């Protein structure tokens, strides 16, 4: 069964890549039909869910990987099952929902392509057993979510939001990569199963602080923790199905997942507890607080997600059995109600044309099914019985009250945040669902009032699951025990129940609800107060600050790039020659030794001297000539002179090549030069002198190199080898040619490729003429 599950994950990836082919075949049913695969996966996982024994994990090797250290091996244990079921189940519902929601959008192929790949990446992340594989899937979720958030790419706002989300989560991804490599180096393995089996804990290691900091940045960016929380409200620019999926089961929950995964390896230290509790607490509070001041339904939900993520991070930071249990349950609770609420918001938006809670009203009467699904989800959000949310909240309070040392801080903070959650739930309920006299009911677009039943499947199923699990929470016991074993690395028996008896925690709950209601009754003054505070914090509006930071950085980079890449060919050449000159002269002088061996010098031969004199004269003529043509011809004379020298010293092949190349170059040069404007002196005397000095210095350097080359042998010369093997193994007497086509054939292959590229370059330079093309039009 576990192999089947992994195959289905692979199938999801394949399906995503096949979307461009499948969509024309499946037409408008694409979303609904493709949703079958995640549902099948959900089914397979459910089977495992009920059959997986306690304290075991199933490892599936695919035998496939980019590196020996980076095998795509997967592990199925309680933790990955909980996350995997949420990802695949909600993923299937979201796909079905988008089949209706996106029906009139353009670019649906792109939408399904990225949505399904996103789902596959998230599943891979959740089930990965190898930390490097986990990192790859982590980055894949960042990239695909970038395209999903920026789906309306022709509008400014989604583009900016997508870029922001990408930059922030990519920063976290980079940190994660470093952290994973460090963990791998310290522990000697990248595999979670080995890390767990060996019971490695990095807490005592000297690099622990660094690794923890990197992991912390990774999860804080991904899971939208303060001060990186600001990308998440922006991400609601995505189409609603995407928001539903991003917020409920994927993306932002990847950080939570990573924390739980690494808890046995890194958790429980002072740094871990301090950083996570503090950040989580702040995030939880400000998320709930800012949600009170919003008018847009999706924005309200986005801020409550931030609060929920803060809660989970804080619970994991507390690192007690009760808190981990609470975090796991709360992840399920939050996924169920947040997914449902976003889908409800999408339906309301479709049917009324607005998401503004001040304009919506009386929906309970006009859209009863949608409203009931929404109300059930709101009940869960405010933590009221009989929903699963109630159990989740009880567990959270329980964990906080039991927390040693810090309960004085976490309990009030948690109660305050929950009070606001209750208040916002009641507010939303009151504003949009209840029919009221002084607020006119909003007209609906759809004649039958409710949208077609298919639309409602998602939110209704999620609401009913939340309700059902609230009634019979015992179903979760087994899997939670298994997950707890791998998170806490000790066996824990979990027993969930709706009714915990009359105790301190229940009192806290009642107090919370009462205070929430009071906040709701005082909503006008509270709303004003929140408004004032939001206005005040807008001075430090983080998204804008972030954008400024990016644009300043780009300006800075642009300026400096312009300074280095100025586009003047002569200065590039000067830089290049000077750098080479300095480095090589330094090396030559550093090498020491003799430059010239008098005993080796052969007698001066007259014909050689004659060739040299003619060449030198040709060079001087080229320098001082006032005509381009004669300058080129005299350069040709130099070339032939060099060829003659090769001839004198017996390098016949070289000489022939030099002659021929020189001839061809001259002919082509003449062809081109003929059409240039008349010769003119454009450079000043100063720059000519500067160029002359550089040219002479480079010439001197080359002379030095040639002289010195005689005396420097880093390795034993291999000319003897070539001479010996050329005929015996290369079947050729012409050593030069055998070297070219046999011994050093790879070099030649590279060189002829460069030749082909050069010809292509000439072709483009000559033929590509944008100005001409425009005028032709």
């Amino acid at each position, binding site marked *: 069964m576990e192999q089947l599950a992994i195959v289905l994950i692979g199938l999801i990836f394949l399906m995503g890549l096949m979307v461009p082919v499948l969509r024309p075949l499946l037409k408008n049913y694409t979303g609904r039909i493709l949703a079958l695969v995640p549902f099948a996966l959900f089914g397979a996982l459910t089977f495992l869910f009920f059959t997986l024994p306690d304290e075991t994990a199933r490892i599936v090797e695919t035998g496939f990987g980019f590196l020996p250290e980076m095998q795509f091996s997967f592990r199925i244990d309680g933790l990955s099952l909980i996350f995997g079921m949420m990802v695949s189940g909600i993923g299937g519902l979201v796909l079905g929902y988008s089949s209706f929601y996106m029906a009139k959008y353009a670019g649906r192929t792109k939408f399904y392509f990225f949505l399904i790949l996103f789902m596959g990446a998230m599943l891979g992340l959740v089930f990965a057993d190898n930390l490097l594989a986990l990192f790859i899937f982590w980055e894949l979720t960042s990239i695909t979510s970038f395209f999903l958030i920026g789906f309306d790419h022709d509008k400014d706002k989604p583009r900016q939001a997508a870029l922001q989300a990408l930059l922030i989560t990519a920063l976290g991804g980079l940190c994660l990569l470093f952290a994973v490599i460090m963990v791998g180096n310290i522990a000697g393995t990248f595999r979670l199963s080995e890390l767990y089996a060996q019971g490695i804990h990095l807490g005592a290691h000297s690099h622990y602080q660094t690794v923890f900091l990197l992991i912390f940045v990774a999860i804080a960016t991904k899971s939208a923790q303060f001060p990186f929380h600001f990308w998440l409200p922006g991400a609601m620019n995505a189409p609603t199905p995407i928001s539903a999926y991003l917020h409920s089961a994927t993306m932002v929950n990847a950080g939570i997942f990573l924390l739980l995964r690494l808890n046995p390896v890194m958790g429980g230290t002072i740094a871990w507890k301090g950083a996570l509790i503090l950040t989580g607490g702040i995030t939880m509070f400000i998320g709930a607080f800012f949600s009170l001041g919003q008018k847009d339904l999706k924005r309200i939900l986005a801020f409550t997600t931030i609060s929920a993520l803060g809660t989970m991070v804080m619970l994991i930071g507390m690192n007690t059995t009760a808190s981990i249990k609470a975090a796991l349950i709360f992840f399920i609770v939050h996924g169920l109600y947040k997914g449902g609420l976003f889908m409800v918001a999408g339906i309301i938006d479709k049917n009324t044309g607005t998401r503004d809670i001040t304009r919506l009203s009386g929906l309970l009467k006009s859209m009863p099914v949608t409203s009931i699904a929404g109300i059930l989800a709101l009940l869960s959000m405010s933590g009221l019985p009989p929903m699963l949310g109630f159990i989740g909240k009880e567990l959270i309070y329980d964990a906080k009250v039991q927390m040693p040392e810090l309960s004085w801080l976490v309990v009030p903070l948690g109660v305050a945040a929950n009070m606001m959650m209750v208040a916002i739930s009641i507010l939303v309920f009151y504003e949009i669902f209840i029919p009221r006299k002084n607020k006119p009911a909003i007209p609906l677009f759809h004649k039958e009032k409710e949208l077609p039943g298919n639309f409602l499947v998602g939110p209704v199923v999620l609401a009913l699951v939340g309700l059902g699990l609230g009634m019979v929470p015992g179903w979760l016991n087994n899997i939670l025990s298994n997950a707890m074993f791998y998170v806490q690395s000790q066996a824990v028996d979990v027993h969930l129940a709706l009714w915990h008896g009359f105790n301190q925690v229940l009192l806290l709950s009642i107090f919370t609800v009462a205070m929430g209601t009071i906040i709701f009754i005082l909503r006008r003054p509270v709303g004003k107060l929140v408004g004032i505070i939001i206005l005040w914090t807008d001075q430090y509006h983080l998204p804008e600050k972030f954008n400024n930071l990016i644009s300043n950085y780009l300006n800075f980079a642009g300026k400096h790039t312009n300074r280095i890449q100025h586009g003047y060919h002569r200065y590039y050449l000067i830089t290049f020659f000077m750098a080479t000159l300095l480095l090589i002269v330094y090396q030559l002088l550093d090498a020491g030794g003799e430059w010239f061996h008098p005993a080796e010098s052969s007698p001066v031969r007259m014909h050689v001297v004659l060739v040299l004199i003619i060449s030198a004269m040709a060079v001087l003529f080229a320098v001082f000539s006032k005509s381009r043509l004669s300058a080129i011809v005299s350069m040709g004379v130099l070339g032939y002179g060099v060829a003659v020298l090769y001839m004198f010293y017996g390098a016949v092949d070289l000489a022939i090549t030099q002659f*021929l190349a020189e001839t061809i170059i001259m002919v082509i040069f003449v062809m*081109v030069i003929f059409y240039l404007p008349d010769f003119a002196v454009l450079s000043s005397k100063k720059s000519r002198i500067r160029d002359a000095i550089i040219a002479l210095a480079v010439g001197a350097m080359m002379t030095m190199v040639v002289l010195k080359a005689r005396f420097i042998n880093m390795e034993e010369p291999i000319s003897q080898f070539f001479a010996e093997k050329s005929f015996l193994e290369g079947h050729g007497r*012409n050593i030069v040619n055998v070297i070219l086509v046999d011994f050093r054939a790879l070099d030649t*292959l590279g060189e002829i490729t460069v*030749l082909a590229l050069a010809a292509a370059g000439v072709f483009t330079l000559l033929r590509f003429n944008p100005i001409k093309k425009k005028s032709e039009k």
Partner: protein
Amino acid sequence: MRNIVLERIVSLFLYVMVGFALFLLFRGHNRPGGGFIAGIIAAAGFLLYGIVFGSEKVLEKIRVNPRYIMGSGLLIALLAALIPMMLGKPPLTGVWTSLAGIALGTPLLFDIGVFVLVVGMIVSIFTNIMDVLKWNS
């Protein structure tokens, strides 16, 4: 002004040069010569032809787009790299067979590839230049 004598000589000379180039190509392994030199000589023949008759006539004469010639040269050279791989040896290893006492091997194939590519490259460059700069009288 057309110069009949020059035209006759040049069109004859083209064959002489290409023939000489092929001769150099095949003897290159034992005596001075080889693919690169042979390629330049053959291309020089076409260059001369082009100067007298214009680039269009050159393209007519060789019939194939010089860019394709260049590409096939690269492919032939690559083939010489791939054949040893199919025989389970590292790429570009020389594989030899003997045909009627003459040793034939992939290095020769490689040399032919170099020859074809060099011809294609030079012809491509100069015909383009002549065409764009209106050297066709």
